[in-house]
């Protein structure tokens, strides 16, 4: 499904970023980092656009020839970014949504974990597991 999943802190540094082993990790770092531009654009345009119900899900940030980059922002300004392969057309919008929800739930648990210090990179195995679940290739 996803080829890269990233969690980015309020201050825009990566709390967690993982991509499928097969592909060039660096490229994803660049992609995700660049996507922050659009995330910020969307966040800042809150309320301006009419009939925008201020969802946490930001939708498709931008497509590239090879990837589709989706965004999500928690109320704590933590950003989730999911990159999927453009060739993977089996994924519909609501599937992406549910992925983000899963991610958010798991992240919340991380935040409430006494052994996690907010702002530190995420090492939680549980979280990692959830991410792995989303990255397994399904056709």
């Amino acid at each position, binding site marked *: 499904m996803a080829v890269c999943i990233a969690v980015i802190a309020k201050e825009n540094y990566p709390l967690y970023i993982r991509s499928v082993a097969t592909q060039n990790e660096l490229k994803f770092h660049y992609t995700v*980092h660049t996507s922050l531009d659009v995330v910020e654009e969307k966040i800042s345009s809150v309320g301006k656009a009419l009939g925008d119900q201020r969802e946490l899900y930001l939708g498709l940030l931008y497509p590239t020839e090879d990837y589709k980059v989706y965004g999500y922002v928690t109320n704590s300004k933590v950003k989730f970014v999911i990159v999927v392969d453009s060739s993977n057309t089996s994924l519909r919008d609501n599937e992406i949504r549910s992925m983000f929800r899963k991610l958010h739930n798991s992240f919340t648990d991380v935040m409430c974990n006494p052994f996690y210090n907010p702002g530190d990179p995420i090492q939680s195995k549980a979280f990692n597991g959830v991410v792995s679940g989303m990255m397994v290739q399904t056709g």
Partner: protein
Amino acid sequence: MECQEERPIIYTMENKPIVTCAGDHNLFTSLYTSLAQQLPREPMEWRRTYGRAPKMIHLEANFVQFKEELLPKDGNKALLTFPFLHIYWTDCCDTEAYKSSVKEDMLRWHNSLRTHGSADWVIIVVESNDTKKKNKTNILPRSSIVDKIRSDFCNKQNDRCVVLSDPLKDSSRSQESWNSLLLKLRTLLLMSFTKNLGRFEDDMRTLREKRTQPGWSFCEYFMVQEELAFVFEMLQQFEDALVQYDELDALFTQYVLNFGAGDTANWLGSFCAPVRNWSGLLLRRPIDMEKRDSIQHEEASLLDLRSYLFSRQCTLLIFLQRPWEVTQRALELLHNCVQELRLLEVSVVDGALDCWVFLSCLEVLHRIEGCCDQAQLAANSSHTVGLWAYATDKLKSLGELCGLVSEKGPTSEDLNKTVDLLAGLGDERPETVNSLQSPYKKLKEALSSVEAFERHYLELSHAAMEMYRAIGRVRSARLVGKSLAEFHMRKGDPKKAETFLQEALKSYLSEGWSLPVTHTRRQIAECQKLLDRKEDYLQTSALLAGDSNLSTEERTHFCQEILNFAGKPGNPSHKATLSMSVFAQLTQLQFHPACASVHSGAALKVELTLRCMMPISVHIQQLAASIHFDVDHGGTHGRTKRAQRRTNLGVIEFKMGDSLAGLPCSAAPGPSLELDEVQDRSPSDNSLNSTGVVCKNTHLLLHHHEGTSLPDTLNCVSPPTVTMKEGAQMLKVQDVTLAPGNNSIVFTAPSGQAGTYTLRQLCATVGEVQFVLSHIYPSVRYEVYSQEPQLTVEPLSEPLLAGLPQMVKFTLLTGHYTVKKGDALQLSNAETLPILPSTSCTARISSPTAELVSESTLSIQSSEKVTSISLPPTPPYHVLEFQLEVVCVIPSGSERPANERLTNGEVRHRPRSYSHPDTPMTAIDQRMSIDCPWSIYSTLLALTFYIPFKTKHSLLSAGNRKYIQVCVQNVSDVNFTLAEVKLTEKQHASLELQSLNTKTHQLLCSKHSLFCLWEVRWKDELPSCMKCVFSASFSPLSQDTSAFKPFHYQFQLERVTTLYSVKAEISPPAGEQHCRSGLLCGLEVCITRLTEPAEGEIAEESKTDPDGLKVTKLMYEVADSNSNWAVCGKSSGMVLMPMKVNATHKVHIEVMPLFAGHLPFPKIKVLRYLPHTAALAIQPDPDSCVENDSLSLLDKTLDDQGDTASIRSRGSVHSVGSGDQQQRGVAMPRLEAFSPGQVFNHSHTQQVLVLPATDDHIMEVNAT
């Protein structure tokens, strides 16, 4: 008359729904214009089927002459050519004509319509007055014609026949009929639309349902649905039109996906054909007929279809004023196409797609520019920038493909490629042939030459970057910048490249993206190497060598780069200087000793922990730390404490400026807030108004946020200019090897001069390279102090007892002084404090850390003046200890030593004794003055001794006989044995003191007292004054008798002779045998002179009795202290006493016992009466006063029981009168008490029996 001509239908916006006209042609022609004009004037609501929202539409029509062949054959799907309404025109008004001709014609028309099953027709009857005028003959009511027509044609469809009256007049009437006509026409048209489109859509749907069946053709279906789209477009229903295309789009996409999923639909054939033409999108025509045809003939390639589809959507979107949707869809389309071709495994020439995408991007952009003004474009660049960037990318990859990006131009092979690609573009489209800036031209030119390519590429990239910047997509802009940098690198222009890279690097660093940082750094390193910017390159290499994101090999490579540079000899004057943080980090610093404070010359070690970040161990020629020294005077132990507090146990931790793994500064927390509780009390009564929690450091928190600066390790994208200041002093170690990870390096710190040493910089030298830590923070300093020698003496055991040998401990802190051989302490002896020469006196020498260094025996020479203790050689800042035995002589009574000078020439103090608050013992401060080799001044030390004994004496008399009692009280905690108790009198040889003490040795336990008694015997006469010395020897009970020490107590007795004896008799009242309480009895006092007048006794010269004897006045006083007696009459009186032996004087006094029983006699006092003239008996001399109080302490308790004689009471004046009379030299008669021994009172302890009174009552009376 264009309406009548046959014209081939071209699918443009000029299309209008077709309406056929039959019947009277000239009539129609006359009305056509106004009709055509007026029909669209009013909008009409179109109610739709399938729950689609109703629309208001303006209807237009294309009126054509009715022809049989216009009517649709069945099965014909064409909609645009479909006549939606058929009109028959007539203005016939007489029945004859109607019957004869018109009706036939109408019938023919009507039948042909019916045969083609089109029910959308209307008959319009035009009537005007002038037509009436023409033939007045047999006029029928107009209505009749209409009625006829109606009855003939429209059975129960009366509305199919409409009357239009006086159309060419403008009268309200004609206007009315026009309106109703138009309304009718519109209604009918719409009805027809609904009916026919509905039917069409149904057919279309059924056709779509068949799509799974073999032989079904997408292209065919495409044409059908597009027909519908066209109609909507014709009706200006662009939304609906667009929907048609979107459905087609979706349908196709779905097919491709299914194909991808394995379902091979045969119709895909043509689309899977290899791509031969890649001449981008074409958006400048409303309809690209070529492509449409190719689709119609099922020859379209995938790109053709997509292009056509998009061009239509684009057109409609622009009609709908949604240009930005165009750009967005365009981007999706392009991506999608690329994907689809991949999915369908369509074979494409390398770069062909890039060309197609590039051209398409530009085409879209041009189209948009064509329909928006500059302002709009600027405002919406967020929508267009994507296309720009995409185009840029594609151009770049094309350039690379065609070898236009390499330093040495394209190879022949590249050129072939280029040619093929250009071939695929075909000829330029007519629309753009004569526009200079067409995408086609751009691409052709860009691929034509290296220079041209560069120009175009840079132009595009910069455009893209600018737009990104403009809309605040900085990161994207930087990414473009990066690829631009790569381009420059390829072109061998590292200078240009670096600026872009550095900019990008900054943003990655500031946002803490380690991987991009690493990658970008590597590129920068490459640039710097090419640019031959040594230090920068080394700096970057160092960073990379320590970068955990890189493989060990890579890291080792960069590390090696540094070492290589370091290896080759450069100019010694200038070494390459890098910031140390990239090479190794100072993590910890530790002092030994921990207090970080030593005396001058002592050893101080500084241990650094360096975390080396190099992947391999690095050999360092020298590691040096520069020191800033500043002298501060009086640096002593005091500051040591501070040093300890500042650095906990000498360990200083340095927080990690971890360059990459760590969070960026933006995340670094500011100062943590500090809260406090507050209480607000009302000023009036101190009651609490309110309490709360407040923040103590608000100001800090509120202002810390502006300007978050990066930690310098992050910051050093280019190495900071660090220089090693050559400090005067340095910590240095040579030739250390730093292994990866933590290394500990130990320095020996200079500690020569006393003062504060602050570590400033750290510098590691590796050949030609220096790594400098320009500022050690938190600041690290150590102190060196110097100390004066100190000599102290303290008792080994508290308390020191006077009179006994006691151990005292001498402690010498040598400080900065070195005790040389032959150095000695000179103690000036005081005989009150002799130092006992002991055989074995050893001195311990121990280091500051209190471990024993050496022991040696002291040699002590004592003369009677001086004791000199020669000290063993001792190094500085050591401790020299030894013990001496001293004795403090107990001052005995009244010895008065002359003030002698001490050897060192200062006046020697007599030890003063005083009573110490916390012991009952009397304390003596013994000062000793010591001359030390290190100072010209002699050291004064004081020891406090305590006298273990309190001694007091008393004189006891019995008539003439005299006894002396001495009481020794042991106030110490030690038990003693007392021996050889002696009392001696010096002056009077005749005098003999006979001891009445039996035991020789006496145990005197702590807090016990010992009483000794002597009888005084004398020959001829008792001296008026005796100087006695009580002496005993004592030793602690534990020790043997040899350790006996003498104890002396001196005292003096004066006027001990008994002058008078006083006797008293109490005689019962007359006739009584015994005294009775309450009855008066007689008291007879008889005072007898016992001795001749002694010298110093004052007589009253005037008063002499007849015998010429000297007389003296005595005063007696009868006082009963404890009111057993009532004295009646005068209780006191004066007697003249002749001063001769046995002179007696009797006094009779009445007294009354108040109680029964054996009552002690009332007290009888005898005092000397001194006339005012008389001089004072004794002038007390000041010395004796001194003497007195020096001893008064010894017998303070004596005074309490003041009746017995004491030295103190000697010569002191006891007055009966009130206090003021006491002053000396006041000429008044005075009373003077006798010294205790001088008057012996026989009645002292006498008692007399008193019987109780017979009558209590009386007694009671008397008692009152």
